[in-house]
């Protein structure tokens, strides 16, 4: 596997008293270290991606057999009201849930950076706790709490003598899911921001304080800009996660009285198409189209934040 180049000038290894050839051979060993990952990468990312692309170009009919369809599946997907409805939902949902999550995570992290002691330690672990809980169980617990017959929302409402809102009804399901997702992920994002805040040299704050900055000004004008790359990282994560929304609505489906339809999100729709209708070609096209939307959304986002220093520079 060693790469045999004698003129490898671009190998600035400090303090190495070896010939360029030996150096190149040594660096070639790098391939051996990344080899196991490359195998997994090819088998479970490149191959499925390529295969999905291939499958999506064919169509399978009972009478006609498998025939080449070109981009027909994609034309069908982007004209399919079900796919468009799901896509529209996840786009709308991410526009609300991402700023909300980042806001909760940022406020929590800034508070934790300011306060020390037992309360801070307790709060840090409590806010992070949902990350250690599977999304399936998080959704189930909230499903119970939303229950119109015995949940606490119902109890508080009857105490106040008002009609209890059912958070999984057609009009409210957006907010019901918003709460579940914010609860599930904000703590993880909080820890990432908090870790970045802890990495900042605190003499900067001293300097700002001497210049007369208040605690709030230090938080907003000094701390937030310094953790910008952590913020970009979590924005990308939550964008990718939200656009492929699946687990929470899928789990809440049986108890949502039909509000969450089989085309609620593109991922649920693809799953339904593949496993309940055996339309693997069309399901692959939906997956691929969704993947493309995610990729494009993230790329646009990365481009927009590029100048300010980001993960991929």
């Amino acid at each position, binding site marked *: 596997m060693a790469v045999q180049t004698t003129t*490898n000038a671009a190998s*600035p290894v*400090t303090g190495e008293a070896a010939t360029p050839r030996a150096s190149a051979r040594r*660096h*070639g060993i*790098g391939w051996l*270290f*990344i080899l*196991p*990952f*490359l195998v997994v*990468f090819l088998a*479970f*990312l490149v191959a*499925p*991606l390529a*295969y*999905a692309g291939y499958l999506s170009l064919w169509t399978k009919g009972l009478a006609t057999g498998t025939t080449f369809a070109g981009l027909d599946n994609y034309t069908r997907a982007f004209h399919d009201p079900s796919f468009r409805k799901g896509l529209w939902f996840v786009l709308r949902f991410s526009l609300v849930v991402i700023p909300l999550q980042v806001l909760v995570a940022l*406020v929590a992290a800034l*508070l934790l950076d300011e*306060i020390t002691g037992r309360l801070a330690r*307790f*709060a840090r*672990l*409590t806010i992070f*706790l*949902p990350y*250690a809980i*599977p*999304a*399936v*169980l998080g959704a*189930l617990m*909230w499903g119970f*709490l939303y229950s119109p*017959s*015995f949940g606490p929302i119902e109890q508080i409402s009857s105490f106040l003598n008002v009609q209890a809102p059912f958070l999984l009804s057609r009009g409210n399901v957006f907010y019901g899911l918003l709460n579940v997702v914010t609860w599930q992920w*904000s703590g993880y994002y909080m*820890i*990432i921001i*908090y*870790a*970045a805040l*802890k990495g900042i040299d605190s003499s900067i704050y001293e300097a700002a304080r001497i210049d007369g900055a208040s605690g709030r000004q230090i938080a907003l004008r000094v701390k937030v800009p310094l953790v910008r*790359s952590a913020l970009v*990282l979590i924005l*990308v994560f939550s964008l*990718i996660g939200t656009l492929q929304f699946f687990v929470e609505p899928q*789990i809440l489906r*049986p108890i949502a009285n039909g509000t969450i339809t089989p085309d609620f999100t593109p991922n649920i729709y*693809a*799953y339904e198409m593949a496993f309940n209708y055996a339309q693997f070609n069309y399901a*692959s096209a939906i*997956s*691929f189209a*969704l*993947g493309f939307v995610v990729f494009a959304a*993230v*790329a646009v986002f990365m481009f927009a934040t590029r100048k300010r220093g980001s*993960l991929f520079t």
Partner: protein
Amino acid sequence: MNNARRTPRHVRAKLLLLALAGYFLVPVWWLIVASTKNAEGLFAGTGTLWFNGFHLFDNLTDLFTYNNGEYLRWLGNSVLYAFAGGIGCTVVSVLAGYGFAKFHFRGRNLVFAMVLGSVMVPLTALVIPTFVLMSNVGLIDTVWAVILPSLLSPFAVYLMRVYAGASIPDELLDAARIDGAGEFRTFWRVALPLMRPGVITVMLLSIVSTWNNFFLPLTVLSSSKLYPLTVGIGLWEQLASGNNGGGQSLWNLIVVGSLVSIIPLIIAFLTLQKYWQGGLAVGSLK
């Protein structure tokens, strides 16, 4: 310090923090309380968030014996998938991160750019084609169908590359080489101990993501004896809401089963706190 000005602000900050902590704790508190109730208490219209009788041990007995103890089977499966997938993913990612950080081989930047680009590929978009590919080679409905795809984590590779770059001085590696240590010996004896917090972080993150995974096992497994807890409890939920529990109220089992299944990860996070918090810092500072 100018205490007079700072104290009131901190009181407000502490109250806000307490409110946040309360919000995040509510469902877990509910889960603990609900686990101690019998079927009647669980659906009684009063005091959802407070105790009503104590039936935790009855519920646990029911949980572990229902349907020939299928819960314990699922628990065992989850442990197997999480450890095999999580540890395997860690080994693969740590090796690759170190390789990317410390060797200047040809094509490195190209391959690493592909890895970074793939962080943006939504992994659930790969589940359906992975299913079809694996069914072509007969891997569907085996433990491998869950474990093998779990080995892939481009983000873990990125994290380990940053971590290895920041925590291992080149001079130290060179010194080991001059002393005659081979590359793998140098990695094992010099680099790996220095990367320990990063390795533990990646291991925790990948164990959690395998333990919590739902979509992949739901698709690639069809016999319920191979289910992990997430898919198993999802199955119970479907049976319970369709009233197919065979006369027994499955909701109690779902509640107490959920409680039991979140305990191992909470313990892992609490005991390994120091490591993963430091490890995450490096990943986000780059």
